[in-house]
């Protein structure tokens, strides 16, 4: 599966929402379920999906989907395009 879709799927699974309603701009401001507990689950699911380990200060930076993606890119995850 495309890493872009895998990324959005993790958000969709954790935040219990339709993947079609998510994009890189999605953030705690636009998504009601995105609270601090959701971040714990996001970290957990993302680390397992992409086999990475986030740095602790990265987590404070989880401000929207695009930022999370750029952190994953820094960790070596390749996104097409």
């Amino acid at each position: 599966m495309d890493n872009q879709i895998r990324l959005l799927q993790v958000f969709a699974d954790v935040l219990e929402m339709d993947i079609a309603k998510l994009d890189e701009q999605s953030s705690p401001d636009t998504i009601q379920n995105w609270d601090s507990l959701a971040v714990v689950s996001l970290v957990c699911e993302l680390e397992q999906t992409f086999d990475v380990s986030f740095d602790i200060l990265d987590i404070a930076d989880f401000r929207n989907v695009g930022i999370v993606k750029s952190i994953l890119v820094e960790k070596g995850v390749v996104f097409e395009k």
Partner: protein
Amino acid sequence: MISENLLMEIPKEWPQSVRRLVSTALESGRIAAIRDALRAVRALPQEQQGRPFRLGICRTFTIEAQIEALTLGLATLPCRPAIMVGDMENIEQVLINPQSQILQAAPDALLVLWRLEELHPRLVFEHDGMSAEEREQAATDVVSRIESLCSVYKTVSAAPLFLSTLPEQMAGGTAVTDLYSAHAPRRTVSRINQALLDLAVHHSHIHIFDFSGWASRMGRMAFDLKMDLYARQPIASHSLMSFAMVLVDTFRPLFLPPAKVLALDLDGVLWGGVLGEDGIDGIKIGHAFPGNIYRRIQLHVLALKRRGVLLALLSKNDYADVERAFSAMPSMPLKLEMFSALRVDWLEKSENLKEIAEELNLGLDSFVFVDDQAFEREQMRFNLPQVRILQASEDPLQTLSALMCCRAFDVYRVSKEDLRRTDDYVAQTQRRKLETTSCDQQNFLRALQLRAIITRVTEDTISRTVQMLGKTNQFNVTTRRHLEADVKKMLADPNNLLLLLSLSDRFGDQGIVGLGIVLGDPASKLAKVDSFLFSCRAIGRGAEQALWASLLIHISSMGYVSLHAEYLRTERNHQVSNLFERFGMTKQNDGTEAYSKYVLNLPFQPSLPAWITIEDKT
């Protein structure tokens, strides 16, 4: 790190599709899989979901991320779990205030998850700055706080209270200095854990969740300092599922009556080797490798017996052999008289187990069956699906680990009655005759998808041929111990026929298990069965009929008009005393049981076992 017995623990009456969803979810721990599985479970009829289980949890750290995993795990007990989580840091408020939300919800059980980091942060992080007296006082304070919590709790709630032991992984430093300090956090943790265990010993409403035991099995990797500091969630993401499943095991005895009987196979489980083939001297059991593995299995079985578990022996062997073996090896931990029921014969194990259940007046779900042979386990599963089947295997270490991980006998407290129970049953040692195959038996064999491959003895297979001739005692009509040179001589004569049968089923390949040798005399057009034998492990599947049919087809096509055979009685081979009659031959002599002579006119249409696919690769 999911328990090997996982699938065994998912309710058998749930549809296969749901069981698969649940096991996938529990293995992967992924949130989407867990939610899918939970939805599937909740769509089941209510009676399959079990009774409601309201669990209140007080905790000093974040566990929200694993609530769904825990809910799914608990649902497999089976029950309909509703988990309520109290505020962090407010243990007293939740546990001893009758007006607390959790107590108001009338929970069926309460669980307390805590660690020293929150119970007394100074003792963990600043203990070097405390005087010895201060540390002593602090530890005493924690213990008395827990004790008074428990005694007040008893006055406000009757629900069982599960207290977790404290993990020392996080509190324990790795500094050498800590080992020499009388008040290192590790010692404090041990002391508090000791007090917690004492509480459970003395109060029947208090139970233990062994958080510390889990932590030491899993090690430091089970914890994640990053998420601990970020969200006070100390348990690492990859360990959440294991943690949830250990909790499930902790609650299991509330729901499942414990199994009462351990029904054990003998060869390959309680000792190494096959008694009927290897003899007493060839059996592996004792202090030296590999006998020590089997000894360890026996010791574990003995420990279960001492806790009140009944033992049953289900072995395909001759009873006299087994009796001799037990008395010849008096230093084995298990003695024959320790078994409450013995079935040493050639009957189907499921039939025997059913009888034992009736005899002991116990339900089939009270039994845990252990057998190293996939065939026997599958037959049990097929005929008596209520019996719990241990994930044993031909690898004795796997059998030992499965026994050690088996939670089926778990009870919170062993009663005096439990301890006495095993003496109350009288061992019965009836032997039965081999009976004709039942209709169910054929269905079972069909489901196995048996395949028999018939080949001629060649250079490659000659050593296996000689080995079987030398070893096979029970299913062996003549017990002629030909050596390699003899076999080569027979092979050199094209008038002879030496066929092998290899057997496989959907569980795997058993290799060469049967041999038939027919020696022919072209002048008289007579052929004679010199040997016909099968390995013990392959008996009861109709493979002997497959080999016999192939022999007849070949012999007929070689132009022989008459086939002779004989049965030579030994101490061990009475189970084949009437084999040739069953095969449709005519007995020629009467009287003596030690020697029988048979004849058959060719060509003869043999009956083929319909449940075996026979491939002739000669």
